[in-house]
């Protein structure tokens, strides 16, 4: 699980082009949207694509993303339970 969380942090930084942020800057429970990393709606769509491409998870309802993308911890828990690859 710890490995997955580190992997997710690295992917978020790389795929969302977060400049001047390193893996160590993101705590497991940091909010990804709003006051946390300050991600926006396009970032949310990128994360949905990432779940599909890298973990074989398809979200049929984008609203589900609001809960799943709350933090790296919540994302990792969800991926652990639902991943198909």
């Amino acid at each position, binding site marked *: 699980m710890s490995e997955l969380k580190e992997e997710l942090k690295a992917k978020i930084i790389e795929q*969302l082009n*977060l400049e001047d942020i390193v893996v160590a800057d993101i705590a497991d429970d940091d909010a990804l949207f709003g006051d946390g990393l300050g991600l926006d709606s*396009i970032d949310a*769509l*990128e994360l949905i*694509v990432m779940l599909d*491409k890298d973990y074989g998870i398809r979200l049929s309802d984008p609203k589900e993303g609001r809960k799943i993308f709350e933090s790296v911890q919540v994302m990792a828990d969800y991926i652990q339970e639902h991943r198909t690859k």
Partner: protein
Amino acid sequence: MVSLNGNVFFSDNVEDFPTFIKSAYKFLKTDYSKFFKMDNLSKLAFLAADALLKKENLNEKENNIALIFSNKASSLDTDRKHQASIENDAEYFPSPAVFVYTLPNICLGEISIKHRLYSENSFFIFDRFNAEHLQLYANSLLRNGKAEKVLCGWVDFDENSYDAFLYLVEKEGKIEHKTEEITRLYNIL
């Protein structure tokens, strides 16, 4: 190389665009986190406009500056990236962050948001730098009171070839806004 009013104020010998534009961004102290999410054309246009508009003491709430930009390659650089992500059915994962930049005029929105420009904007595609069109359109906007100033120019990016030339025109400027002068300035840079 980046120059303002004929004076080179930043140069870097690196050949690749991402390194160059990041160095220029840091040199200009343009603090704007969304910059790194933009595509190459928007980064080029955004930074060129920022270098010029920084000196204008803009209003914090609203500025009546129209934008008339042009280029040859449209958004081809980003269009190619998007195409690559959708051409294989087995690996069909288009990126939303890439897709939103598959129009050249998106860069005008980025500039307008940063500098609070609630004004006309247009992006034209030409085979070559077209001073006649910039001159006619900008003069029309100024004459009809559609804008107090017009930021005009050429911002082109295709693969690793790029160039940006912008100028700000207003009713009572120092240099006469005529096609010969625009072409001369474009060619000396």
